[in-house]
């Protein structure tokens, strides 16, 4: 019951906020593009659509040159590094969602588990878990991700793993802090007195009341994960070459940046896709935070 009115309140607030609406609109747009990818940019049957094949000219000849080719009717967004930019941008949407969702959800789950165990049990368990968290936090994120991907090898799946391993600590701390606060509340004490098992107390009573800030954080992180993955590509440890991913496309453009007249399309299209994607998540996240933040409810 309480949850329902809560959701209605959130929805109402979201609709009233124009930047949030812009964010939601953009997100819906990206979701549609991701779903319709096979229609918008058909891949060759029987092949992994994320591994781009060299583009073909209008006459069906393979393009083997890396030089940028300006947009025309066959390649509406042009060609860079022998790959079709349109294809890359469309399928890159799926890659962006994939990496964002997988990383933020899995790392949040890890964070929630670590955080709630730590906070609920306290004592030496808390001490050990929090020191481990400190250790992971003490290594700069980009450096850690770089080492991991160097060890695991190139590829977006490897990047995902690295980002998960070094991405759960914030959530763990957040959850721990919130649960520590909630632990003192009456209903938890009551549940404890009734002899309900620890696990159920955490799952049923503590988590629901502390989960909203995590949702806000997930939505904020969704966007920046895509940027981090792109930065890793720049440093040579990101997605493999030819993977349908915005960062990979932008990385192709980097060596043509000093002659934008010849290569603008390779920067502009994937760049816009990326900016709008991150923007969308940020706007939604901002709005959610404004709504959830209890201090702001007044």
């Amino acid at each position, binding site marked *: 019951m309480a949850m329902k009115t809560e959701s209605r309140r959130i929805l109402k607030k979201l609709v009233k906020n124009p930047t949030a609406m812009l964010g939601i609109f953009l997100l819906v747009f990206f979701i549609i593009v991701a779903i319709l990818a096979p229609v918008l940019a058909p891949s060759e049957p029987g092949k992994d659509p994320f591994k781009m094949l060299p583009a073909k000219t209008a006459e069906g000849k393979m393009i083997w040159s890396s030089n940028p080719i300006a947009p025309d009717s066959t390649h509406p967004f042009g060609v860079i590094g022998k790959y079709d930019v349109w294809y890359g941008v469309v399928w890159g949407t799926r890659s962006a969602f994939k990496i964002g969702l997988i990383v933020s959800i899995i790392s949040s789950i890890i964070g929630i588990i670590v955080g709630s165990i730590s906070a609920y049990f306290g004592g030496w368990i808390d001490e050990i878990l929090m020191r481990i968290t400190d250790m992971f936090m003490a290594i700069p994120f980009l450096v850690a991700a770089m080492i991991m991907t160097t*060890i695991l090898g190139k590829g977006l799946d490897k990047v995902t793993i690295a980002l998960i391993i070094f991405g759960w600590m914030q959530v763990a701390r957040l959850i721990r802090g919130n649960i520590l606060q909630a632990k003192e509340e009456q209903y938890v004490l009551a549940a404890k007195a009734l002899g309900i098992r620890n696990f159920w107390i955490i799952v049923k009573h503590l988590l629901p009341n502390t989960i909203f800030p995590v949702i806000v954080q997930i939505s904020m992180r969704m966007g920046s994960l895509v940027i981090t993955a792109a930065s890793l590509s720049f440093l040579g440890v990101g997605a493999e070459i030819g993977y349908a991913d915005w960062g990979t496309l932008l990385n192709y453009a980097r060596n043509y940046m000093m002659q934008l007249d010849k290569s603008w399309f390779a920067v502009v299209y994937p760049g816009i896709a990326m900016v709008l994607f991150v923007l969308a998540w940020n706007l939604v996240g*901002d709005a959610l935070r404004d709504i959830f933040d209890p201090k702001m409810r007044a």
Partner: protein
Amino acid sequence: MLAFIIRRLLILPIILIGVTLLIFSMIWMLGPERLIGTYVKSPEALKSEKAVERLIQKYGLDRPAPEMYVKWLGNVLKGDFGYSNVGRQGVLQSIMELIPYTFELALYALIPVVFVGIWLGVIAGSHQDKPLDHGIRIFAIIGWSLPDYVFGLLVLLVFYSYLKWFPPGFLSDASMKVMREGPWKDITHFVTIDAILNWRFDILWDAIRHLIAPLLTLSYLWWAYILRITRSSMLEVLRKDYVRTARAKGLSEKVVINKHVKRNALIPVATVSGGMIVQLFAGTVIVETIFARPGLGRFTATAAVTLDYFSVIGAALFFSLILIVTNLIVDISYALIDPRIRLS
């Protein structure tokens, strides 16, 4: 308070050792055959079949991991962090030499990032949900959402290729020559300060000229961050009773914002800014690469990518130390500012 500080200081070495263990074990999963890759850049350098085995032996990679770790730790306690293949000299020496460069960049970056960020945040916060608020936020988020290398290269294109204002690099060759051959004294190792102390304003100007483009890039990337914190903190304060009272008293909005809101809204910003210096420190990799500046970020990135493990561990240790110490300082100062915070 004192107990808190002592406790944190006692934990410090444990965490540092944990960090090195973590990275050590990560790297050692690779095995000697792959680790040796950092010393062998091409097949031509492996004419004899035995070259790889010799290298593995020379760098002691064939020993069991615990033995290697203990040996490394023992050397570290003696002040020897190993040979950095990236720095082409000792790890400690490399890091010590690079600290001033990155520190200078990060400190200067903090100024535009924080001040402009706060300024933007205050404007956005005091115009909540008005077009100005949306405009500023979108402007800042675009910076946040552009991969840093794209924006960096655009800055290079505009300010160097077209306008010829801000060249890449650290200093011009002429200034470097002065620094090398004198008259020049290295006092603080911060070139901008040393230039003033040496009374060489041409070099000061040269250093600034090389700093502007990287600073511009870094600032635009980080404005969104400070803006967001300032803005939400502003919104929070704006709802406080004393602000309502002030408004009710009929004070103009400008006075309310400047006198009552800003001061209180900036406390969280101050704490975040302290932690941000670490982020800036580690986040200079790409700016350093694009603008061909020396620095720790680039050093660490190259080391990580080439698996130059001595450098990687050394750099990680250094960053962790900075991070932990900064956090400690931030926590303490936070407690000093706001006595309600309980340190635990």
